[in-house]
């Protein structure tokens, strides 16, 4: 995912969503994965200059791993609070940066883990069950 172009943010999530639809997966699961990925993608574009998403679709679940080499998250618990945001003004003007990204990702997934090191980057692992 490119981090230099906010316009393109969402492209990767859109592709994952289409792939899931083509596989005939149930629409609730498709929507949850799409939203969780989209929020994660936006986060990486806003904060980390882009990143990489690996998505595995198994019969039981969709597994997403989002990795970036951005600034990292100093306090993950704080970052998970609704309304807490470190997004710059320019991003808030685009309709984001309300501090709902990580909480939304947690809400729409069945399991979510964040690993982060300040100065090195962040990895977010998420799982949406299909059964």
């Amino acid at each position: 995912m490119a981090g230099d172009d906010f316009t393109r943010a969402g492209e990767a999530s859109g592709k994952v969503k289409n792939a899931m639809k083509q596989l005939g997966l149930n629409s609730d699961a498709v929507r949850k994965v799409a939203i969780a990925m989209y929020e994660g993608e936006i986060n990486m574009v806003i904060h980390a200059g882009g990143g990489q998403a690996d998505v595995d679709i198994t019969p039981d679940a969709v597994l997403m791993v989002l990795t970036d080499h951005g600034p990292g998250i100093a306090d993950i618990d704080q970052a998970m609070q609704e309304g807490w945001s470190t997004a710059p003004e320019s991003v808030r003007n685009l309709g984001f940066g309300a501090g709902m990204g990580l909480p939304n990702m947690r809400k729409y997934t069945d399991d979510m883990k964040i690993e982060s090191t300040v100065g090195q980057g962040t990895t977010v692992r998420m799982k949406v069950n299909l059964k």
Partner: protein
Amino acid sequence: MFMTVADIKRILNAQVHCGDDLMDKEVKTACGSDMMSDVLAYVKDQSVLLTGLVNCQVIRTAEMMDMVCVVFVRAKTPSEEMLELARERGIVVMSTQYRMFTACGLLYEGGLKGGCRVE
């Protein structure tokens, strides 16, 4: 009895930018917001999004939420890039002269409900 995109166009006296062939699509609920994060927290599909925010991420958000239609209030007009995104995704895009409060009120009076809830 359900509402269609054609009904929304009529109620809001809206101008259609793309999706002329999708006027029969059913719309079950509506969401009015300028904050895409709030829209993403909103669960229902087959919805219409009313917004004053004009950028590509509005269309991407509508795509993720399986929204049928996006209406820009206060006569705001989308860019060609946004319309291309919308066409590819089968999303109707319209503009209305009404401001957000009035547009929402008119649709609500017309029978369309919100029902925003956080799971």
